[in-house]
């Protein structure tokens, strides 16, 4: 029983990772620093031996709620209220994006996409596992090792024609 | 086992130690943010949800006021050096 839980948690983490990295890269987070604070973090990441575009990606996640925040908050509200909670979370994430001076397309679309995925996968993997899986996904980017994570993000950005 | 209470307690203790031990002012402000994280977690763990909403709205406002004060202090410090160099009569 324990092993089944762990397998479900890891699968949910992989789904969340693919979801938010693809949406954030498609909306052009690695291209340029959206706010001024993201530039500092990108240059600091480059200084310790990482990639500059991956550094801009991580700085943009810190400085404004993007698709990563949309994924986490929409899965929380799906766990607590059902499908209509995901729509409320999308609205609140859009307001938060406007507070941080961003256009706010990435966060809203990330929240709507994870709502659709949870609704489709509801009989197999519950919404509770997506909350834990999102924490694992964000830990692998922001918390574990900054240098190799930024190199990996830079390669993905280069493959999708965002950034050099 | 209440995990939220344990994590919040460790945040409060290490944040308070960090405010004392670090010397750079921006590091001190980051550590104050860490202490705020623990405070909000402790409020939520005893179910005072409305107070948690109010204190988490007021947290960035207090941080922005501290940062504005620090930047004003730095610009004043830089201006004063120039001013002293321009008027050598006062320094003699």
């Amino acid at each position, binding site marked *: 029983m*324990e092993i089944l839980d762990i397998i479900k*948690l890891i699968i949910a983490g992989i789904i969340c990772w693919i979801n938010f990295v693809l949406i954030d890269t498609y909306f052009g987070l690695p291209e340029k620093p959206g*706010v*001024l*604070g993201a530039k500092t*973090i990108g240059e*600091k990441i480059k200084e310790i031996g990482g990639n500059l575009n991956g550094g801009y990606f*991580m700085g943009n*996640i*810190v*400085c*404004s*709620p993007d698709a990563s*925040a949309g994924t986490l*908050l929409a899965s*929380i*509200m799906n*766990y*607590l*209220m059902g499908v209509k909670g995901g729509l409320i979370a999308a609205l609140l*994430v859009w307001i*938060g994006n406007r*507070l*941080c001076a961003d256009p706010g397309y990435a966060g809203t679309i990330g929240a709507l996409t994870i709502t659709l995925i949870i609704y489709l996968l509801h009989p197999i993997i519950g919404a509770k*596992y997506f909350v*834990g899986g*999102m*924490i*694992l996904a*964000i830990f692998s980017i*922001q*918390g574990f090792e*900054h240098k190799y994570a930024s190199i990996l993000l830079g390669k993905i950005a280069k493959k999708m024609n965002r950034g050099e | *086992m209440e*995990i*939220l209470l*344990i*994590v919040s307690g460790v945040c409060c203790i*290490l944040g308070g130690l*960090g405010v004392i031990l670090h010397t750079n002012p*921006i*590091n001190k402000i*980051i550590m104050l*943010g*860490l202490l705020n*994280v623990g405070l*909000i*977690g402790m409020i*939520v763990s005893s179910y005072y*949800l409305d107070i*948690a*909403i109010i204190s*988490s709205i007021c*947290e*960035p406002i207090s*941080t922005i006021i501290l*940062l504005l004060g*620090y*930047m004003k202090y*730095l610009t004043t410090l830089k201006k004063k050096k120039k001013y002293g160099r321009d008027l050598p009569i006062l320094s003699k």
Partner: protein
Amino acid sequence: MDIIEGVIGFIALLMVFRIFLTRSRARKLLYLCCLSFCISALIALYVKSPMGGIVAIIYFISSTLTSNAIAYTIEQVKDIE
């Protein structure tokens, strides 16, 4: 004890110690962002009602505002120094 809460709590404790021990200012902000993800998820798993979800959303957005202000100030201060 639930296994999801255990994993999230372990990651949160690891992040707190790494914030305390790292010397760089910009990398502390990255760890602080990961910690606020963890606390937001723990709040929602602890209070099992829609009000807990509202608290988690408002807490996360205001902690993002704090990080934004601190990073902006680091960029400005670098020019002055």
